[in-house]
């Protein structure tokens, strides 16, 4: 069949309103823009291009080098080099993804365009927002961007990661390290506890007279019994967790004196790490896709915004029901979103998805634990498939923990190869 006759026929069908015309067949259709090049955005851009070469896919990302958060706690603890966390976008370009290294400064959902900081306006048929998280600088009195230069959050990997590592290295043996853990929801639910574990490992091996306190705004956390059992075994006199109901919630920060304030007392640290409350990255707010919680409600079939048409949100910024804000989740959501968008642009109905999350934490080198879940759309949200998922066996032998540590390493190598390799 000649291309022209097919095009004529599609035009004729469309004018007769017989079928919805796929966007790619319209004059300028088939343009997808992805904003944010982390595990969610980079996966999605590449997956869309692989699913359909004919679609134009542009990735808008502020930096040319991505620094991964998973395993960055190992960097803090001196077990890994930051370079091992860093990846470029060359392979995405080789797959045909157009790269724009610039900040997206505005979205017009009605006019379907993205504005860049240089004023350029880029039209799209479908937009994917994968901005990750921003810190809520208004949530914790005394803790803002300037304070984070003194008391790092290290919740975005890079300079902050190295700042916390240097502070630990410079600390005298016998110092008090304090981590403030935020209320739910936040990026990487087991992350503060993996960090506490690996910092405790650093102190135990390098500065054994030191102490570590976790001040928590929660009474429960991910993989809690596994972590606490391991702490009892590995760091019994070194690591103390103070829950919300035991007075652990930090209500103010005094950066000049490295002091964290709770309703019950003041804690002066040699090294403090404040992981503040978070929200969806700023561009999501500018696009009008965040709700009062600061996060983005989405349709669980396609991850299209419940507030703006033609805009999909994936990864940490989105409200994904039972699915946690992890790199594995972001990558899995991105592939489902890519399939949904290619289907929609062809005028097809996306299939109901199933998603998996698997998330490893290290409590010491060679000691890994995990949580997993399987998810499906239910009542407008992603819900756990009942009977599936859960955490590692509580009384597993050390050989199992070693195996899970190996799987954790393997996971990082595999996922970063899929996204950037």
């Amino acid at each position: 069949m000649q291309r022209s006759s097919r095009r004529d026929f599609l035009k004729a069908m469309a004018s007769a309103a017989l079928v919805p015309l796929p966007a790619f067949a319209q004059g300028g259709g088939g343009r997808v823009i992805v904003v944010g090049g982390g595990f969610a955005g980079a996966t999605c851009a590449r997956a869309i291009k692989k699913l359909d070469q004919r679609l134009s896919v542009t990735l808008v990302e502020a930096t040319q080098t991505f620094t991964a958060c998973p395993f960055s706690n190992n960097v803090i603890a001196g077990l890994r080099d930051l370079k091992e966390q860093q990846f470029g976008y060359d392979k995405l370009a080789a797959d045909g993804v157009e790269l724009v290294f610039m900040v997206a400064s505005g979205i017009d959902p009605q006019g379907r365009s993205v504005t860049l900081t240089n004023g350029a306006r880029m039209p799209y048929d479908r937009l994917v927002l994968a901005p990750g998280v921003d810190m809520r600088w208004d949530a914790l009195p005394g803790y803002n961007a300037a304070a984070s230069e003194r008391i790092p959050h290290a919740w975005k990997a890079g300079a902050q990661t190295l700042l916390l590592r240097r502070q630990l290295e410079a600390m005298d043996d016998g110092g008090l390290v304090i981590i403030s853990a935020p209320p739910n929801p936040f990026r990487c639910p087991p992350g503060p506890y993996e960090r506490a574990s690996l910092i405790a490992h650093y102190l135990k091996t390098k500065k054994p007279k030191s102490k570590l306190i976790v001040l928590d705004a929660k009474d429960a956390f991910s993989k809690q019994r596994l972590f606490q059992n391991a702490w009892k075994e590995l760091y019994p006199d070194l690591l103390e967790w103070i829950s919300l109901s035991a007075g652990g919630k930090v209500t103010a920060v005094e950066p000049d004196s490295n002091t964290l304030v709770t309703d019950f007392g003041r804690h002066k640290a040699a090294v403090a790490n404040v992981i503040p409350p978070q929200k969806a990255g700023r561009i999501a707010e500018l696009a009008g896709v965040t709700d009062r919680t600061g996060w983005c409600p989405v349709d669980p079939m396609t991850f299209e915004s419940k507030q703006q048409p033609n805009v999909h949100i994936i990864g940490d910024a989105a409200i994904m029901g039972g699915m946690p804000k992890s790199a594995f989740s972001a990558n899995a959501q991105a592939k489902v979103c890519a399939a949904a968008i290619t289907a929609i642009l062809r005028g097809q109905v996306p299939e109901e998805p199933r998603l998996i999350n698997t998330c490893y934490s290290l409590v010491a080198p060679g000691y890994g634990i995990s949580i997993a879940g399987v998810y499906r759309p239910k009542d407008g949200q992603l819900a756990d498939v009942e009977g599936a998922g859960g955490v590692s066996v509580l009384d597993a032998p050390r050989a199992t923990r070693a195996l899970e540590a190996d799987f954790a390493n393997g996971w990082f190598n595999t996922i970063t190869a899929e996204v950037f390799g």
Partner: protein
Amino acid sequence: MIRLITAAVLALIGYSAYTAEAPPGAASCSGCHPAGKSIATPVPRLNTSDAAQIATAMQDFRSGRRPATVMDRIAKGFTDEEIRAISAWYAAQKD
């Protein structure tokens, strides 16, 4: 006109078969299971097994017949039909 419609319909069908879509759940697997042999991981590749091998492994993980660290927890989230579709799709993927 009939010929034109037939051809257009065929073109549309052909288009939908342009990529064999991954069945529900399959896209998540490649977070851990590598696509190529150059990746350093103890986790096996799925695209080098045949469909029956993958399906049997999943069913054995689900029933507890095969020891696991995490695959038992994941396999419990899938029906026989879903497992068959995922297994067939991975077995059909080539390097």
